[in-house]
């Protein structure tokens, strides 16, 4: 149904969206091949939700054009909706209806064949059967997410757009969730999923990072880290807060991030950095090691870098 397979599932160019005078998404271009899981990351207010809404036809871009599943974003919103499963960031099912009623409503809006069987099947595979007659409003956060995911894969879409699907979900349920997403991707479904969790980002084939309305980097985890050009030292020891305070504001240091008894110190210019760190290297209470920067180091760095350049945070 989704046209010749080599053509990308999402293919958009220079999408822009403005609210009032404020540009919320700024000339974003994105290509997502079929069967891939793309992680969509970025600080709060960077424009992820707005981008996803433009992709599924819920918002009309002010500028730019492109296709989703081979259909034009502006002209064929109707056709896109039939093949996209969109999971909203905020829970958006009917709280005064039961799980079963919600799912069967969705099945009928999509005019699925044998809707009741389909609903039974999805409830089985998502372990929702026991709670079938519980009102959606009375579900806990994690179960709400599960219902939402069930509803958006019910019509077997070719593209899943998931907006922070695992926010507030416990680790076990999150792992199940991601196993499910990988299973779907294996079947050829394309997934664009926004998240704030680093370990989730690491489970994606590719990462798209947005900050301040713009797409900053994209690529695999390794590519994104490499593009940050960061050099990172990890220090372990007892008086790390003192060390952190004395290094703060040092132009040679790009980011400082404490992780329990360890501190990640990153910079872009290794020589300058060595000079700044030299006085502390001989301290016996500290253990130094040169490590590869984490994705989080890279993101914090990107955010700081583009915050200086791109104006204030939203």
């Amino acid at each position, binding site marked *: 149904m989704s046209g010749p397979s080599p053509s990308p599932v999402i293919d958009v160019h220079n999408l822009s969206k403005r609210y009032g005078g404020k540009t919320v998404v700024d000339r974003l271009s994105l290509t997502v091949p079929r069967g891939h899981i793309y992680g969509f990351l970025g600080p709060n207010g960077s424009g992820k939700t707005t981008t996803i*809404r433009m992709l*599924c*036809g*819920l*918002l*009309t871009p002010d500028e730019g054009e492109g296709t989703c599943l081979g259909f034009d974003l502006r002209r064929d*919103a*109707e056709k896109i*909706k*039939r093949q*996209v499963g*969109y999971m*909203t960031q*905020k*829970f*958006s*099912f*009917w*709280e*005064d*209806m039961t799980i079963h*009623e919600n799912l069967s*409503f*969705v099945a*009928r*809006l*999509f*005019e699925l064949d044998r809707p009741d069987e389909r609903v039974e099947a999805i409830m089985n595979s998502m372990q929702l059967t026991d709670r079938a007659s519980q009102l959606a409003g009375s579900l806990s956060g994690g179960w709400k997410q599960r219902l939402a995911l069930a509803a958006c894969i019910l019509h077997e879409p070719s593209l899943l757009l998931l907006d922070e699907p695992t926010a507030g979900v416990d680790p076990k349920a999150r792992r199940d969730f991601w196993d499910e997403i990988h299973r779907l991707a294996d079947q050829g479904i394309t997934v664009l999923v926004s998240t704030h969790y680093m370990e989730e980002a690491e489970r994606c084939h590719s990462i798209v990072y947005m900050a301040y309305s713009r797409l900053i980097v994209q690529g695999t985890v390794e590519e994104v880290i490499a593009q940050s050009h960061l050099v990172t030292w990890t220090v372990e020891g007892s008086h790390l807060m003192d060390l952190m305070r004395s290094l703060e504001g040092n132009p040679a240091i790009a980011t400082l991030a404490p992780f329990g008894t360890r501190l990640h110190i990153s910079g872009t210019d290794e020589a300058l950095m060595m000079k700044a760190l030299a006085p502390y290297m001989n301290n016996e209470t500290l253990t130094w090691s040169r490590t590869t920067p984490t994705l989080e180091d890279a993101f914090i760095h990107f955010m700081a870098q583009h915050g200086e350049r791109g104006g204030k945070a939203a």
Partner: protein
Amino acid sequence: MRNGISFYRIGAVLIKELRQLRRDKPTLGIMIMIPIVQLMLFGYAINTDPKYQPTALLIQDYSPFTRTLLAGFQNTDYFSMVKVVSNDREGHDLLQKGEVQFVITVPTNFARSIIRQEKPRLLIEADATDPTAAANALSALNGIITKALEHDMTGPLAALQPKGAAIDVTVHRLYNPEGFSRYNIVPGLMGVILTMTGIMMTALSLTREREQGTMENLLSMPVKPLEVMAGKIAPYVLIGYTQAAIILLAAKLLFGVPILGSVGLLSAALIIFLICNLALGFTVSAGARNQTQALQLSFFLIMPSILLSGFMFPFRGMPEWAQSIGSLLPATYFIRIVRGILLKGNDLVLIWPNAWPLFVFMLITMAIAMKLYKQTLD
């Protein structure tokens, strides 16, 4: 049915609405209670045909004619002579304080003028702040006067039997052409209650979805605006029929209102009228930003239907501008249709002049609703 309007999807929306409605017992209860309470209020508590209304007299000419006239007034039971005043100002004072409803002035030389066939002027001033209170009393007037004077002008005065009226009655207030009674109130009440509940029930339908965030979900699925509207309106058509049945039953059993015409024809008119109001409410909810705004807008639309549809005030008694506004309201036409069918036994041909405007209104409202329904979140 992949591209056109799908009845299957309308059914899906309809079932969803019914399920939600079933769990919203308070709303359901209110919808059934409103017609009952209103009927009791208007049918029993509010008497629009008050008798023995306080009346003051300013008599500037005592004569047998005057006495006969006053006796005639009292015999109607509408007037109760409570005061005799000696000048205009005193009379106006009483009116202003609300102590009397009417002041009747018998001019000087009243008897002589009658005999000379000069048509003397009998002035009746009425407190018009509540025009309906005086309506029946005033419409009884002409009969009284002619009868009373006929009786006096016999024997030697027979020659004076006028060709037209012997005296010129001047009433200082609006003339009420349509008499008011319970018979008349029931059709009006049906129009007003259905307008009120119809608009309010759907006015929140979309704003609620928007405020709860479910609109984003609904919009992301392949359902068309017309399908959403039809599905959301349909359950309330059923509720509207229930309300109408309650009103009709009460009208017949409690107030003995006759049902001369066809109930089937009434049902047909009813469905168009219900859709008019529900679509109007839907339009409000498509245009309003939040629930508060939707409610304010609904009241703004409901008020004219109560005031200018011919329910509160006789339609022909209203000034022209009010009549023009009234002519734009579905309730105006529906009330006429119900009166026609119930009280006059009208058939389709006779109600047609009032039926087609309803139909046009329905189509226009639906078109506006579709125009306002946004398929995106922009």
